[in-house]
């Protein structure tokens, strides 16, 4: 490895370190939730298998595509601002926000259908985990969108530059975390059975 490459690989974490403490804390919470789900399923295999069939997996699939793409847009926003293009950065972020909004709409439609089917936190253990995990994640999407909205506004206002764009990377890192968690959640709750 030449000197230049090792210098590239020695950069600090993108964005403010404070968000990374938060990201690692959140990942820990989700990690424990996933582990709890997995072991609860082992103990109640038949219940989980039966209840899982009630889910419409298409919702989960579509939402994964939406969130992954949204995350990609944020990555592009980050590249844009590094090239000094504030307006492009803002556009990518608005695109990401739009996809995040679509995610919420799809998820709400799914929740609506779930509640009509009588799924509640107290119905059974699978429903409890399904609702807790997805609602907890849903709230993260809302929070992430609030952060991205602030960052987008500032981007359009020209508050970031090629030299100073910590804010974009801070908000972006949080959004990628929300995406990362959903990718695991999708596999765990919707796909593997």
């Amino acid at each position, binding site marked *: 490895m030449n000197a230049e490459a090792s210098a590239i*690989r*020695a950069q600090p974490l993108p964005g403010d370190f404070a968000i990374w403490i938060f990201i690692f804390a959140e990942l820990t919470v989700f990690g424990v939730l996933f*582990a709890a789900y997995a072991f609860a399923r082992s103990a109640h295999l038949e219940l989980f298998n039966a209840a899982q069939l009630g889910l419409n997996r298409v919702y989960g699939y579509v939402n994964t595509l939406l969130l992954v793409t949204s995350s990609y847009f944020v990555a592009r926003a980050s*590249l844009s601002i590094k090239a000094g293009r504030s307006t492009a950065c803002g556009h990518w972020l608005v695109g990401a926000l739009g996809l995040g909004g679509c995610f919420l709409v799809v998820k709400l439609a799914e929740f609506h259908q779930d509640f009509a089917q009588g799924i509640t936190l107290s119905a059974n253990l699978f429903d409890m985990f399904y609702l807790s995990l997805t609602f907890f994640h849903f709230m993260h999407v809302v929070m992430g969108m609030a952060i991205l909205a602030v960052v987008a506004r500032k981007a359009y206002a020209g508050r970031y530059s090629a030299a100073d764009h910590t804010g974009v990377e801070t908000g972006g890192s949080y959004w990628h*975390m929300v995406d990362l968690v959903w990718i695991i959640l999708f*596999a765990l709750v919707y*796909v593997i059975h």
Partner: protein
Amino acid sequence: MKSPAVLPFKPCTVSWAVLLALTTISFELGAGASGRMLMAAVLALTLIKGQLVVSHFMGLRRVRLEWRIAMAAYLAAVGGVIALAYSIT
């Protein structure tokens, strides 16, 4: 600092396309099969997807080694615990 233009697309664009493809494969696998093989396959795909997001979206491929290890360890730990729980049933 510009990275050498080996690919016609940006690395994150390639990752995005791969992520969409892997998601579709996972989804299709889940429609057909079930059981341990499905679990192993989907879990492996998921960990690859996670690492793509970490490396190319979060941009952690450029950071110091300990952070890359921390993230990889997180994914490995979550995947490991899930695999363990699913294999003891």
